[in-house]
């Protein structure tokens, strides 16, 4: 019964562009429950206290990647950030940093979606087969080489953690490069050369200074920093091959 009497305060970033020029913080005191996550508290605010609060969420189980926010300055999936880890202190909830804010806790993702399209982060088969010819087979070793990078849920926590993206928004960023690398390493894909120009551009892998924050905050252990550094090694080897063996194929 005791837990029903306890409360916790959330300082929530509010920005209503049709009403105010500058954002502000609004405090909400909600019931404290040990099994609640920050997203539960936000849903309580939305349902019981202030229906004007806007934010994205969907699955509530760390799969959809839509509830990413800054929780006490740290990029987190709010469905995985338990109140008990912050209680009894006030929790500060803000939209993910490094992105324009559309409203309250909602950020604009257009830049990322544009980069995904530019990088062609989808399967472009090496050889096309008729359905009657069967599946594109792959060995467990071939799968293991890229599987880790395929776990990305596009939650944008890595972009919020990346100071390079904050300073230089043209940087392709951790998730987009990790996803490009996911397809480049896939034995069934044949478009790494098409992606190479953009991946190896000054706005691509060489913009990354290997701070490693993207991997630290990644809730799915994708390790985008590793994808970028490994892409640097592959790109450098390709460059040396083109210099030393100009007659050979990359």
């Amino acid at each position, binding site marked *: 019964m005791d837990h029903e009497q306890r409360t916790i305060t959330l300082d929530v970033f509010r920005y209503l562009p049709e009403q105010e020029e500058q*954002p502000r913080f609004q405090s909400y005191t909600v019931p404290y429950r040990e099994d609640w996550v920050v997203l539960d508290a936000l849903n309580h605010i939305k349902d019981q206290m202030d229906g004007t609060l806007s934010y994205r969420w969907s699955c509530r189980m760390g799969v959809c990647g839509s509830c990413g926010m800054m929780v006490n300055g740290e990029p987190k999936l709010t469905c995985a950030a338990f109140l008990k880890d912050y209680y009894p202190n006030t929790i500060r909830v803000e939209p993910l*940093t490094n992105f324009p804010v559309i409203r309250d806790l909602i950020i604009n993702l257009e830049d990322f979606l544009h980069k995904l399209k530019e990088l062609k982060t989808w399967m472009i088969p090496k050889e096309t087969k008729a359905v009657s010819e069967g599946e594109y087979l792959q060995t467990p070793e071939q799968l*293991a080489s890229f599987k880790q990078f395929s776990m990305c849920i596009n939650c944008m926590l890595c972009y919020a953690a990346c100071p390079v993206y904050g300073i230089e928004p043209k940087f392709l960023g951790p998730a987009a490069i990790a996803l490009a690398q996911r397809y480049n390493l896939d034995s069934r894909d044949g478009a790494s050369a098409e992606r190479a120009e953009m991946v190896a551009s000054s706005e691509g892998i060489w913009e990354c*200074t290997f701070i490693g924050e993207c*991997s630290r905050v990644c809730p799915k252990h994708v*390790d985008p920093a590793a994808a970028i550094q490994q892409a640097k090694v592959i790109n450098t080897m390709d460059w040396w091959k083109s210099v030393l063996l100009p007659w050979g194929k990359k």
Partner: protein
Amino acid sequence: MKTKEYIRPIPATWWLHNRQVIQFMLREMSSFFVLGFAIFLLVLLYAANRGPAAFRDFDVTVLQSGWIKAYLWITLIFVGYHSITSFNAAPTIMAPRWGEDKIDPRVVIAANYGLWLIVSLVILIFVLPS
């Protein structure tokens, strides 16, 4: 209708807000000390190449100076920090695999330290007898 978006400013102190980023900035800064030490070694070689008398003079006037000793101690700390953080980052950059499995990052780090030790011992073997 598109509403006005709010872009949050990045303060000049952005890199002081997070322990990991401070460590990164120190690693980047340590590169200057690595470069400085490389230049110092070149100057040392140049002095040695001018003959024993000139080198003794260089030793007394430059190498024995308190400033140089202080500089070398600071350099040692930063070069050590640079080496250790680079070794620790090695498994992320290389990530070698054995079949389906990734090789334990500790093995990669240990291999780097092992190589460092071997190279240091080889240099010592060549340098000490003289």
